């Protein structure tokens, strides 16, 4: 039996195919296209072709993420918060807090046995999301992947105290003008973003184990800061696909629930009409 989850995020779309034991058989990660319905169809076609299967071979599909309503082939839509919780708990069963830093938003989720206990999301501000890194990298004239690598060499990390992306840009410019090392600035950038997200997540309480997900968590820079700030923090190998994985797991759950209900209905019918 096969199940599928598709997560259409604001910047990245992920699709995951799992078997009945919840093993990932295949996954695709692409930049989100503005024409989401067509894009979702194309991505599904690619997945089916790679796995040499037909769409009818998939028992259930769950769509999640900002664009979840634009997935014509989904059996159900579920929010990314619930899907993240399910996906991360599959990889890290002891996870109690998820810190997700995405391209356009960030969130904290308290979980237990794969279920959401509480959550918090960023408000109308880009500081604390991947966009913060993009803007500051533009100021530094380096790529985001370079920033992570450079930050690992920092010896005297700098504080970026501004909580606003635009003001942080100005702060960076002033550090550059003073001749501060790029390594220390880079670490400061990661620390600033992580601390901002952390102060938001503290509102729901941080309990160990903590798992860091989302596109930003791929960076070694943020991982170093996370290790410095938290006691027990873990990173999935594929932090981008945890939401889609969770969606696929929930697709399986929904399918099994429906099957169980159908079975009970059949049994009831047998009792009512055939057991004379």
């Amino acid at each position, binding site marked *: 039996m096969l199940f599928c989850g598709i997560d259409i995020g604001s910047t990245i779309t992920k699709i995951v195919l799992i078997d009945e034991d919840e093993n990932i058989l295949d996954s695709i990660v692409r930049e989100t296209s503005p024409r989401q319905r067509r894009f979702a169809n194309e991505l599904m076609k690619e997945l089916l072709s790679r796995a040499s299967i037909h769409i009818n071979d998939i028992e259930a599909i769950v769509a999640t993420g*900002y664009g979840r309503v634009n997935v014509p082939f989904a059996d159900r839509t579920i929010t*990314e918060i619930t899907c993240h919780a399910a996906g991360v708990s599959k990889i890290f069963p002891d996870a109690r807090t998820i810190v997700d830093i995405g391209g356009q938003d960030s969130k904290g989720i308290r979980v237990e046995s794969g279920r*959401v*206990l509480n*959550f918090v999301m960023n*408000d109308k501000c880009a500081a604390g999301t991947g966009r913060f890194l993009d803007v500051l990298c533009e100021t530094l004239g380096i790529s985001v992947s370079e920033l992570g690598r450079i930050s690992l060499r920092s010896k005297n990390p700098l504080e970026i105290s501004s909580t606003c992306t635009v003001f942080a840009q100005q702060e960076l410019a002033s550090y550059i003008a003073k001749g501060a090392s790029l390594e220390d600035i880079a670490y400061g950038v990661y620390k600033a973003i992580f601390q901002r997200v952390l102060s938001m997540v503290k509102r729901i309480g941080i309990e160990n184990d903590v798992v860091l997900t989302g596109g930003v968590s791929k960076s070694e820079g943020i991982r170093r800061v996370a290790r410095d700030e938290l006691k027990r923090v873990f990173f999935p190998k594929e932090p981008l696909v945890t939401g889609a994985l969770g969606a696929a797991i929930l697709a399986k759950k929904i399918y099994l629930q429906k099957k169980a209900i159908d079975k009970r209905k059949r049994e009831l019918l047998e009792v009512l009409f055939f057991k004379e």
Partner: protein
Amino acid sequence: MEKKRTFKASEVAKRGYSLVKQYLYQRAHDKAKEDEPIAWACPTVIYGPFCMILDAMDVPAMAMDHFGAICAVKDVATFFLDACSKDYLSDSLCGYMRCTYGHAFLAKELGKMPKEAPLGGWPKPTLMVERSAYCDGTYKIFQALSRYYDVPVYFIDQSPAIWHKNLEEYRQRLIEYQYNELKDFALFAQKVTGKKLDEKKLDKLVRTNEEIHRLWREVNNLRKNSPCPISNLDMWAVIAPGFWLPGKEETLEFFKELYEEVKSRVENGVGVIPDEKFRLMWIELPPWHGLDMFEYFLSKGAVFVIESFWYSQFMLPVEKPDTVTDPILRLAYEIPSYTCSAIEMAKDEALAWRSQFYLWMAREWKVDGVVSYPLLSCRAPSFSQRHAEEVLFKIDSIPSLRIQGDIVDKRAMLPFEQLRPQIDAFLETVAYYKEKRERGK
């Protein structure tokens, strides 16, 4: 054209607006034309006592809150807020009051009432009345407005109730204190306006208002039924006559009809929506500029069955001995008694009484989830919200969603498209805890 509603709206509640238009705004404009005195009065709980004392002198009291809220509903609040900022007032002051100040500032600058002012704005006051200290965001604006119009402002001292070892004795002291304050105010108002207070009229107003509050409380009690018979949107519309037309016969008639309508819905099993999945509580004042958001909740089967804010204190009856015949003393009973009763109900001294009041409401109205709305420009009702969320979650496993914003300033709130994923995730969490609680039964 009237907006088509996706839920069962109250036929009676929608008449509240026209009552306020006629008996508050129109009356004020008529009085102004006749060169009769007009008062501008402070917000919420204590407005009723002020308003009735003034009404007994045939002086209409204008409600600053209502003007701010209606500006937000009509989407002109930012226009007046910006006008207020132009005169160098801080953006962190009360949104209602900044709208009022902004419209007064523009009226003076233009030499006439700006066309954007809903219901023709407020005419120039003869006097003003406000509480000292209790609501810091309004207090200074009254001072500024008083200088602006060169009219006297009376600051009444309203003592906030707190934990006390001997609550009954403390309540009596507060009542006595408020009684003296109200009496002094009545003398002041008579002196300034040259009008005499009609005690018989005041007595009638006060007793009618007590009946209005009883009916209001009963309507809220009917919302304990499932399906909930009346929406939060209608209950917020009811505030207009309930708060701003205290003691009036017309208000009493309105509440009688409302009670009958809601009661009939309960008897016939009519709910706000046909399929009530989740029962929610809204903590504190709503975003008057963003009421459409609630239709989204309803589309997901989530009904707000109770809202807390200052008026929620009317949910508790005020015990007044029959021997109290002085109408001003009866009014004085109302000011500290709501809070004292809520404190009395609180069982655990280690938890803030207000949080325990929220807990009481959540249990009484069988709430599955809570949405709290801390207000940027209204601090007093916002300060205990985080604690309340914690208490509700820890004690009764009731999850909450916090939405940041303001009563009138739409710029302070997250755009709905960004809010929607949070609402969806919250409702999934609510479903989980509801299921868990039901399994545990």
